[in-house]
């Protein structure tokens, strides 16, 4: 009896304690998540290009190509002795995962590398709209419009009324197909394919010659690049852009996407992929390709430096060909771009740095580091496989055919794409179901 009253009393005390802890939490408005991150300041840069005198320190946070960034900073500081740029390097996954916390904190860097989460940050006013600088500095002339369009987050500029701009590219990327020239010759393939159909025949020829036709590293993003490359050829680019940008009514559940997915399944059934594509990381598939394990390899220009070093003249590159010989060149690509935080105290100095990135001097540094400069005419002509890539990129730019990676459509899209493409490769999903899962995620993010 005694025991029971004790127990009851203790239980009541515990409940009261818990309530006392939780109730004030729930009652306090300031505790509502996100309430402390509202930005009052300006959401756009000024239109003046004058850099104020005095010592200025800019903090730059980035995740790609540290050697290139160091070289760019050194050259910039020589031109602008008053401005000191402090680089803060983070590994890519660290960078992307912490991006939102970093950019909404009180200690946000002045300049930050553009990444997927920036779209949301831009919408909330944490990233400055650079459109006034685009007009003032004339970036439209120095940078191909297709590269700038990727950085508008699909918004219009409040400051200029035109397209918004949330970053400036320094070094562009593109995906495509590498081929081993010696192995290709062994399979009777003497030139890059002109059509998608011809590429399919070359894969078959490689298979007949008892070689592994296509190296895919689908453990991470390699499979996604292949699917996107096929999609680029089959789906009208405008519709693809609408989908990635979250335009109302856009959908990936269309016949072209079904066909791209079916092609992937078909190639898997025919044994065109390396046997363990789903268990191979992209870097590993690249290493296997250098050892001659496959005739073709899907990857991006970021692998070109490594491939050129190991394979020399034995490796070539072409963008995935279109349906007809005369089809425009369309390839996935993005840029190592930099955005300006709304918390910066030196928007003019940041503008000067961004403008420097568009200069021929910066272009040469970017090119020397294996990336494509925004303005390729201003730099020395590369050789070998780097020349193949530069030529392919030039064609894609001329055709307005550089499209962003499909995971830009929503923050959770990368996971859906990666696991979905693995299922396509293993012939474990119907194309319709796969596309349905993508569209679900899209609608979840962009609203009905």
């Amino acid at each position, binding site marked *: 009896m005694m025991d029971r009253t004790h127990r009851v009393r203790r239980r009541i005390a515990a409940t009261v304690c818990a309530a006392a802890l939780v109730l004030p939490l729930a009652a306090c408005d300031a505790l509502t998540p996100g309430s402390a991150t509202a930005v009052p300041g300006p959401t756009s840069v000024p239109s003046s290009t004058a850099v104020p005198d005095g010592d200025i320190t800019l903090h730059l946070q980035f995740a790609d190509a540290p050697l290139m960034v160091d070289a760019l900073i050194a050259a910039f500081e020589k031109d602008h002795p008053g401005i000191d740029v402090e680089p803060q390097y983070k590994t890519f996954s660290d960078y992307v995962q912490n991006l939102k916390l970093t950019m909404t904190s009180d200690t946000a860097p002045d300049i930050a590398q553009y990444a997927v989460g920036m779209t949301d940050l831009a919408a909330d006013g944490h990233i400055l709209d650079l459109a006034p600088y685009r007009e003032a500095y004339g970036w439209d002339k120095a940078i191909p419009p297709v590269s700038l369009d990727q950085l508008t987050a699909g918004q219009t500029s409040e400051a200029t009324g035109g397209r918004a701009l949330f970053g400036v590219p320094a070094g562009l990327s593109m995906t495509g197909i590498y081929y081993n020239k010696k192995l290709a010759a062994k399979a009777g393939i003497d030139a890059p394919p002109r059509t998608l159909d011809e590429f399919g025949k070359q894969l078959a020829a490689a298979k007949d010659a008892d070689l592994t036709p296509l190296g895919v590293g689908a453990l991470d993003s390699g499979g996604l690049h292949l699917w996107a490359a096929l999609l680029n050829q089959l789906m009208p680019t405008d519709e693809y852009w609408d989908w990635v940008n979250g335009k109302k009514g856009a959908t990936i559940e269309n016949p072209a996407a079904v066909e791209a997915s079916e092609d992937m399944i078909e190639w898997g059934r025919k044994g065109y992929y390396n046997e363990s594509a789903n268990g*191979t990381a992209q870097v*590993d598939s690249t290493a296997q390709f250098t050892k001659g394990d496959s005739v073709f390899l899907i990857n991006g220009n970021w692998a070109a430096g490594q491939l050129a070093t190991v394979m020399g003249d034995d490796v070539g590159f072409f963008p995935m060909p279109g349906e007809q010989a005369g089809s425009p060149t369309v390839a996935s690509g993005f840029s190592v771009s930099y955005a300006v935080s709304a918390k910066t105290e030196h928007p003019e100095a940041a503008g000067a740095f961004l403008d420097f990135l568009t200069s021929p001097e910066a272009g040469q540094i970017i090119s020397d580091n294996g990336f494509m400069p925004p303005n390729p005419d201003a730099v020395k002509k590369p050789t070998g496989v780097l020349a193949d890539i530069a030529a392919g990129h030039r064609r894609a730019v001329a055709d307005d055919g550089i499209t962003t990676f499909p995971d830009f459509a929503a923050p959770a899209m990368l996971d859906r794409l990666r696991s979905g493409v693995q299922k396509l490769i293993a012939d474990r999903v119907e194309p319709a179901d796969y596309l349905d899962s993508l569209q679900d995620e899209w609608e979840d993010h962009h609203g009905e």
Partner: protein
Amino acid sequence: MGSRPPVRSGEARRRWRGYVYVLPAFAVYFAFAVLPALHTAYLSLFEWDGVTLGEWVGLGNYAEIFQDSILRRSVFNALVLVVFFSLVPIVLGLLSAGLLARYRRPGMGAYRFLFMLPQVVPLVAVGVTWRWLYGDDGVVNQTLRAVGLDSVARAWLGDFDAALIAVGLVGTWVLSGLCMMLFLSGVQKVEPSLYEAARIDGAGPVREFVSVTLPHLRGELAVAMTVTTVAALASFDIVYVTTNGGPGEQTTVPGLLVYRLAFSEGKVGLAAALAVVLGVLILAIVYLINRLSRDRT
């Protein structure tokens, strides 16, 4: 509860004084473990992307969780991992303890140290190493091919049927050592005279194990079950490093989903709700294990 002697007031005061000594530690624990947990539970009631103002959705996140097919799949995967992280290591540990209990030799310390080693290596390093071992040209496949089992060789982590088992075996490798270590130290507490007595009574190895070794390991068994089951249900690092949940959703576990939802997908409220559900599930299972092991005593 039960037959406690009545407490006089002086004694009571002395008893309360004990809590004062605990207070600093409790304050730290409260600030860094209890408060964050409460905050997580609070966040789970919001739809929040991690940046903008959150929107109160009450129990909406919980409703969403129970409708999600990927989530159900991940819970199933975690339960499969319990077999590999908990059941198999405990059986192996008991076996080894049983064998060593009968014939005790010097050098038990070294033996224990050897099997404890996997426990000391960071799990991320374990994952990376095993990814190599399981790779196309990794040691596992090389060995299989060397003994003529070419048809069995495959990219284990990329194979839809084999990936979950492959990941589970990594956990078996890690946690078997812990179980063996626990059971061996338990066995060492057993009076040698008990084994002698059993042997004089004519007990064979099996009888000895069942009648002497096993009853003495009840406490260790409860600890091993608790630790390994929690490791299986809360698994994250090994899966993240080896397969990142793939291929498809074959190795996706709830811990991985919490991480993804919160950090890459910007669904912090949903992640918090999932973390709460996972926490409650783990607490319930641990409670059950403790309850069962206590009843047997």
